C-alpha cells in the first residue's frame, strides 16, 4: 500500500487533487481511497488531504501517519509545518516551488522534486489553482501512476465537479507540469517544526471549552489570540493600492471579509498581517485603484 499526504491551503484544491489521484490509480485497476482533513473551513487555512493506493481493498479508515509521498502545494507551508513528519524511509517529497530540489531544505536528506506549479497553472488555467499541475509532477517524481492515468483521473474528478472543458484544461496543466518537473536530492540542515499545539488534559481544559484568553506553552489561545497568530502568510496575491486613483469611497473597507482595510487620513491602509489575498477589494473597487499582484 502507498500513502500520499497533500499539504495545501483551503481553496487550493488539495482535496480534489487527492481524489483525482485515487481516480487515476483506480483507472489502472488498483483500489484507492482519498479523504480530506479539514481544520477551520476557511480559504487559505492549512489543510491536509490523503490518498491511499493498493492492489487489494483498503480497510483502514484512519489518518495517514507514515506517508510514502508528501506533496506540498504551497512552499510557504514549509515555514510552519514539518511536512516530512512520519515520511517513510526512501520516500519522496514534492514541492511547488520555483527553486531547484537541492535549494530546498525540508530538514532531512531525501529524494525531492520541484515544479513551478503556480506558473503552470497561471499559464494554462489563468488562475493559481495548482492542484492539477502538482499531480502531473507527482506522476513524474514518483512513478506511482502514469501521466495518462492522471489526465484521466483529473478529467473525471474535475470534469464531474466543474464541467468537461475545465477538466480537459486541468489535464493539460498536469501534462505541462509533468514535463517541467525537476527530480533531485535535497540535504536537510535546518530543523523543521510543526507549530506546537495546546493540548490540555481533562483537568486543564476550561469547562465547556469556554474561550477565555490564555497564555499557553503553545502561545496565546482564546479571544485575542490572533494578535499572535498572524494569517497573512496564507495569500498568493496581494493588493497593490494606487492612491492617485482612489476616491475614498470606502467600498474596499466595507467588503473586506477580514477587516484588513482601514481609512487613515486621506488614504486606505491594508493590514498585510491578516490579508489573505482574496481580491474582493480589487473586484469591488469602482475606481480600479486596487490591483492584485503576486
Amino acid at each position, binding site marked *: 500500500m502507498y500513502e500520499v499526504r497533500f499539504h495545501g491551503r483551503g481553496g487550493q484544491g488539495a482535496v480534489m487533487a487527492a481524489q483525482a489521484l485515487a*481516480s487515476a490509480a483506480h483507472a489502472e485497476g488498483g483500489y*484507492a481511497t482519498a*479523504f480530506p482533513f479539514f481544520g477551520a473551513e476557511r480559504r487559505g487555512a492549512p489543510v491536509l488531504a490523503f490518498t491511499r493506493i493498493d492492489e487489494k481493498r*483498503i*480497510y*483502514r*479508515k*484512519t489518518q495517514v501517519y507514515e506517508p510514502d509521498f508528501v506533496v506540498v502545494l504551497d512552499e510557504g507551508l514549509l515555514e510552519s509545518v514539518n511536512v516530512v513528519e512520519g515520511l517513510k524511509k526512501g520516500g519522496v517529497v514534492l514541492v511547488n516551488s520555483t527553486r531547484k530540489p537541492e535549494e530546498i531544505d525540508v530538514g532531512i536528506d531525501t529524494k525531492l522534486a520541484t515544479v513551478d506549479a503556480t506558473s503552470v497553472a497561471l499559464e494554462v488555467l489563468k488562475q493559481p489553482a495548482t492542484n492539477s499541475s502538482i499531480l502531473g509532477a507527482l506522476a513524474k517524481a514518483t512513478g506511482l501512476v502514469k501521466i495518462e492515468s492522471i489526465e484521466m483521473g483529473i478529467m473525471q474528478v474535475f470534469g464531474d465537479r466543474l464541467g468537461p472543458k475545465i477538466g480537459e484544461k486541468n489535464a493539460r496543466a498536469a501534462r505541462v507540469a509533468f514535463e517541467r518537473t525537476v527530480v533531485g536530492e535535497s540535504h536537510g540542515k535546518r530543523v523543521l517544526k510543526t507549530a506546537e499545539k495546546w493540548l490540555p488534559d*481533562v483537568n*486543564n481544559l476550561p469547562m465547556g471549552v469556554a474561550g477565555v484568553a490564555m497564555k499557553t506553552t503553545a502561545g496565546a489561545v482564546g479571544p485575542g489570540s490572533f494578535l499572535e497568530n498572524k494569517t497573512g502568510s496564507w495569500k498568493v496575491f496581494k493588493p497593490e493600492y494606487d492612491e492617485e486613483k482612489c476616491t475614498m469611497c470606502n467600498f474596499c473597507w466595507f467588503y473586506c471579509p477580514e477587516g484588513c482595510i482601514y481609512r487613515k487620513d486621506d488614504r486606505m491602509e491594508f493590514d498585510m498581517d491578516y490579508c489573505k489575498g482574496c481580491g474582493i477589494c480589487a473586484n469591488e473597487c469602482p475606481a480600479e485603484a486596487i490591483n492584485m499582484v503576486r
Partner: protein
Amino acid sequence: MVVSKICTGNYAAAYGSMRSRARTVAAYPITPQTFIVEHISEFINNGEMDCEYIEVESEHSAMSACVSASASGVRTFTATSSQGLALMHEILPIASGMRLPVVMAVVNRAIAAPINIWVEHNDIMPERDSGWIQVFCDNNQEVQDMVLQAYRIAEDKRVSLPMAVCLDAFILSHTVEPVHLIDQDAADKFVPQYKPTGPILDPDDVAAVGVFTPPDYMMECRWQTDKAMRDAVAVIKEVNDTFAKQFGRDHGGMIDPYLVDDAEVVLITMGTASSTAHEVVDDLRAEGKKVGLVKLRFWRPYPTDDLRKIAEKVKAVGVFDRAVSYGVGGPSFVEFKSAAFGLNLPVMNFIGGLGGRDVSLQDVRFMYEQLLEAAKTGKAKRDITWIGTRGVEQ
C-alpha cells in the same frame, strides 16, 4: 453493466436515492451532508432524476414535507446531520407513528456544544426510541446498497416504518472509494415501484392519517409499531439475502461477524471503526491471537439474539462506542449488557473517536489487548475506558 467509480459516501447516498426512484426529496443542507443535497439537485437538473425537490427553510420542515409526501403515497428521501437531525426530532416519531416508509441518510456528526463538524454518533442516539430503523455503514458501497435496501425494508407491509442509513461524517461522507454503481434496470428489479400498504391522502378516496387518538386505542397502536420493529429483523435478513443473490454483495443483515467462530474475544463496533478493526483483526490473527469482530449494523431493531449467541461462545466482549450516554457509558455497551444479561463473562466498554478524534490501528490493537487480558483473568480491568483521552487513566 456494473460500473465501478471512485466516489464519496455522500455521492453514494444521493445516487442510491436516484436509483431507488425517490419521487419527493425535501432537505436542508448542513455540513457534512450538504453534498447529498447538491448531488440530488444536480441529478434533477440534469433530467436524470424524476423527482419533486422541495426547498424548505429548516430540517423540521424537511421532515414534515417528507411525512406529508409519504402520506400521499410517494417514495420520499431526505438527508441530514447533527443539529439538523435534532431539529427534525419532533417529526421523527410522527413518521414512524404514521407508519410511513420515509428513508433518510444521516451523516453522523457531533452534536453541539461545543461546535464540532466531525464524526460522532451522539447525534442519532437520542433518536434511538423514535421508531426509525437504523443501520450503520462502514464503506461507501454499503451506503449506496443500503439506501436501496432501506426502501425494500421500510416499504415491506410487515414493517411499514421509516429508516435511517447512517454514515460517518467525513470518514465516509467526504472520502472517495471505488463503488459499484447500480444501473437503473437492476435497481428497478430490486426496488419495484412503491405501492403503499395503508390508506393514503387521496382526494378521490378520503382518509384521515395521524389522527387524534384517545387512550382506548393507544396501547394497541403502540403494540403494532413495536411488533413491526420486531418483525423487521426477519425482513432485514430476507432483503439482505435477496440483495446478495442479485448483486453478489452480502453485507450481513443485522450484524456482520468476522472471524468469530473460533474467537476467544470479540469487539463490537459501529460505523467506520469496524473497517479499521477488520485490518487489526487480520494483523492479530497473523500473530496467532484468536480475535474476532462483530460489525453491529442495525442499531434498531437491535440484534439481541445474534449477539447473545456470539457472547455465549467467547471469553470476553468489548464494545466500542463513538458516543456516550453521560454518566452511564456508551449506548451500545449498555444495550449489549442487556442482551448478554446473565452470561458470566467480562464486558468492556471503549469510548473513542468522539468529535472526529482518529481511531487508529494502535487504538484498536489496544482494545484487543485489553480483551485478551480480560479473557485470561476472567475479569475486566475496568468497565469503561476512554481511549486516548488526556489525563484519563487507560
